[in-house]
Every structure is written in structure tokens, then in C-alpha cells.
């Protein structure tokens, strides 16, 4: 991360709570459709980040060991496994397949 991005994201992350909570919030509360849309933003955007990290290399689509690890993580999240179990299983699956295949 660059120093600039650290400063920018710190302001963005902490500032949004104040702007969201005290300025936009009361306005948004009176607009149910918009406020519902706002609550769904993380699902859509974080999922896009997950897709990018799982099947992309730069701008090309690649299916490799990462996908297997993320699928395992998905199953464990669905079954409400603890965070540590989810991430360790994902890494172990990917590492194992990589070791066997490579």
C-alpha cells in the first residue's frame, strides 16, 4: 500500500461513519428503497473482489488451485465454521493441490 492510499482510506473508512451516521443517515432512513440498496452494497462489491481474487490473473480469467480453496471456504462459511477454520482450510486445500499437481 502507498502512503497516500493509507491516508485516503483512513479518512474514507472513519469519515463515512460520521457522514453516514449523522448527515446522510436520517435522510436515507426516510427512503426505504435507497436504504435497502445501500445495505446490499457490500454483498455485491465484496463478492466482486472475491471473484477477482479467485479466478483472475491481471485481466485474464484463470481456473487454478485458488478456486478449490475458495470453494472449500464457501462450504465452511455456509456451515458457520469459525473464521480461523475457514481461512486455514482454504489455504491448506490450495497448498495441497499445488504441491500434488506441481
Amino acid at each position: 500500500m502507498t502512503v497516500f492510499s493509507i491516508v485516503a482510506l483512513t479518512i474514507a473508512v472513519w469519515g463515512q461513519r460520521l457522514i453516514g451516521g449523522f448527515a446522510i443517515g436520517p435522510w436515507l432512513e426516510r427512503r426505504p428503497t435507497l436504504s435497502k440498496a445501500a445495505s446490499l452494497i457490500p454483498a455485491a462489491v465484496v463478492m466482486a473482489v472475491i471473484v477477482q481474487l479467485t479466478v483472475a490473473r491481471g485481466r485474464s480469467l484463470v481456473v487454478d488451485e485458488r478456486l478449490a480453496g475458495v470453494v472449500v471456504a464457501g462450504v465452511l462459511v455456509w456451515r458457520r465454521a469459525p473464521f480461523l477454520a475457514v481461512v486455514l482450510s482454504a489455504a491448506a486445500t490450495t497448498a495441497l493441490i499445488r504441491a500434488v499437481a506441481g
Partner: protein
Amino acid sequence: MSGEPTAAPQAGAPRLSIADFATMAITFFSLAVTLQVVLIDIGTPPLRAFIASSVIFSATSQFAYLAVREAGGGEWAAIIAGTIVATRFGILAVSLIPRLPAGGFRRVLAAVNAFDPNVAIAVQQATPEHVEREFWRTTGGMMIGWFPGVAVGTFLGDVLGDTSRLGLDALFPAALLAIIGNLLRTRDGRTAGMAGGLACLVLLPIVPAGLPIILSLSGVAVAVALSTEQVGGRTS
């Protein structure tokens, strides 16, 4: 051990038990370690990675930024991606603030510390005093895990070496999946997630790096359009 303090309300509102407190601390500890290892693995100097996670204190924002940068996206596109995923903190603050005891300073102090787990537990309390107390107890559990995790992760990231051999590139998306797990459990959350993910998949080879993540916002429109839930329910 109960993995989810927000479920199973026994006598009235859910309180954070010692086991829940420990689970919260361990979760944030692991999350911080994961983030530090990834940050250092992609070339962030350890001291800078340590400062970044201590002051930004948002794994999703940092992961979103890194994902765009790793794909070759520009600095601004990456910062915008990191900012968009943090909009949820503003929304969490909205549902928390009116439930807190009156008092500008106390409300501001709580609002700037709004995260997913502490707000989820706090808003289920019956009185403003209980809301505030459970909010800070949960926040304490998170912070007790986070900051030592940042320190340990910075050290580990520095000594690990070849991390792809350890499958650490899968750890990064897996951590994000765990963070939004509860949101994906709701029908609308799932629709938004699938639409956003699909939009990113289709756009990836076509548009410049960074844009697929920003344009995945279209998944929100799809979810709202397809939603059968009655609009007007509370967002919390």
C-alpha cells in the same frame, strides 16, 4: 463454544458471554494476521503495513484496494473500491446512533467505532444503556484480538517467504467470504452477491482493471429489482 453471539437469545437480548468474547478476539486476531501476511507478501514494507492496518482498521477496505492494485488497476480506482466496501460502516452507524443514550460525544465515539459484529449485538439490546454497554464490550473483544494480530502478522509476514506454496493467495478471498457470510445468508444479500460477482466475472477481461469491482455495484440494482421482501422494513 458458541460461534455466533447474535443467535440464540436466551433471557431477552443476547449478551456477550466469555466464550463469545474469546471467539470475537480470536476471529479478529486471525483476520489481522491474514491481512498483514498478505500485505507484506505483495511488497508492502512491514512497518508501513503495520501502520496501515492499525489506522485504517478495515480488512475489507484494504483487501478491496489490494485486489484492484494486484490486477494492475490505478491508485484512484483502488481507493474508490476500498471506499465503496466501507459504505456499510456508515449504514451500521445509522442503525446504531438512535439506539444509544443521548449525548453528542458518546454517540460520536460509538459511531466511529461501528463494525459489523458490535452493531449486530448492540442493536438487539432493550435499553439505551444496555445498547451502549454491549457495544463497547464487543468492541473490546474485537480490539483485543486485532492489534496483537497486526503485530504478530507483521512479524510472520516478514519471515514466511514463498507464501503461494502455503496457499496464502486463497486465504485472502476466503477471509472476505467469511466476513460477508451473514449477509449472503439473506435472500437479497445472496442475489446482490451473485449479480455483483457475475458482473465482475463478465467485465474482467473487457474493461480496465478496477472497473469490474466498481461496476459490480450494478448487482445492487438487480437485487433491489428482484426483491420480493416488502420495502419499508428496517435495514438493521
